[in-house]
């Protein structure tokens, strides 16, 4: 996969309401700038973020994903992020076994006070995904039913 300077990656961010969403609010209040590629979906807690949403995002054409919540011990619900951390440890290991490109999922802890960290995270992730290129490997097969691609037919 070659990097493509014209390529504008689609990145979706799953964040918790109490830390990262608030941190991203602070980025705004601080007028820090970041790329428009990332769009945020708000969740009560990282503990709520279903791994299936990540899979569906890739299938729907996301080139990259950000998952972010409270730092350990800072969870509004005390342990939602710890549950989430375990979920991501397992999920990453399974995706890696299956050959899914796990470099395209960026996990992070961004607190409500880390407005600049959020901007950095977004900009870094956009740059990383831009250099990885579009996730065609995944998107290509998302459309296939059976024929027309993966049965050795073409």
């Amino acid at each position: 996969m070659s990097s493509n300077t014209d390529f504008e990656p689609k990145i979706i961010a799953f964040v918790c309401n109490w830390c990262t969403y608030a941190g991203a609010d602070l980025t705004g209040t601080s007028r820090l700038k970041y790329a428009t590629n990332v769009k945020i979906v708000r969740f009560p807690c990282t503990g709520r973020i279903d791994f299936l949403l990540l899979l569906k995002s890739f299938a729907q054409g996301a080139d990259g994903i950000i998952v972010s919540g409270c730092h350990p011990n800072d969870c509004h619900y005390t342990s939602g992020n710890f549950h989430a951390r375990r979920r991501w440890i397992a999920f990453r290991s399974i995706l890696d076994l299956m050959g899914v490109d796990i470099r395209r999922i960026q996990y992070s802890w961004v607190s409500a006070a880390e407005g600049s960290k959020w901007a950095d995270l977004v900009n870094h992730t956009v740059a990383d995904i831009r250099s990885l290129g579009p996730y065609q490997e995944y998107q290509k097969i998302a459309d296939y039913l059976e024929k027309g691609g993966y049965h050795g037919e073409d």
Partner: protein
Amino acid sequence: MEKIRERAATLLAEGVVTLVLGYEEGTKRPRPLFCRNSESARKLIFDSRCIHNLAVYLTKKELVGKDRFAVIAPIATLRSIMQLYVENQLSEDKLLVLTVDPSGELRELVTFEDIAGYVEQFELKRGEREQEILSKIDEMSREERWKFWMEEMSHCFKCYACRSACPLCYCSKCVVEVNRPQWINPWPAPLANMEWHINRAMHMVGRCTACGACGDACPVGIPIDLITRKMMEDMAPEFGYIPGQPAKKGNALSTWKLDDREQFIR
């Protein structure tokens, strides 16, 4: 073998149990047998070819009924029974476990504590087949792994034999049948199949006992058991669980530790 037949016949004749779940000779290899009277207990066999995980039947109420029943359980089945117990799916007063220990002795395990103690003696090891395929996968690059699995997944026609054969897939409505929203596309297609198998592996974290029933059941020969197996091997030391010796409360994904290790969260 004779001892198992005798014991099963006695249990049924004396009304201790109304059903003995065991194995009989099948077309090419032994198959599950439901003995409901001492007469049919004569058909029972038990040897190393008996590999069906009979624990899959234990959560089917219409089959096991309301009375006490016995199950002939090799070690893999015992591990599943322990996991089912922790997940509130079995009760001690309904179940009697018969097994044959390595010395050939017939053992009766009455309590889950007994089963746990018995299971503890056996180590879970990779077989030759698992070793061969997994080491092949280990050597692949990410792109090769993706190609390998996509090729395998293109054969899957979603008969769900893997799900049906798994003792731990006892949900009354599986997530693939949830359609608001339709998380996983119900038709067989390479990606929809992949999503199903990733999902299955995630649902098995901290639960899979690596019995291999899913892989054995797959009619098109996808080594799906190795997905959960590899996951189990990677996660067990990470989260400190031992298949067949589950923690009393919760499992790997419903519990956590302050110092769970990861290197990927920025």
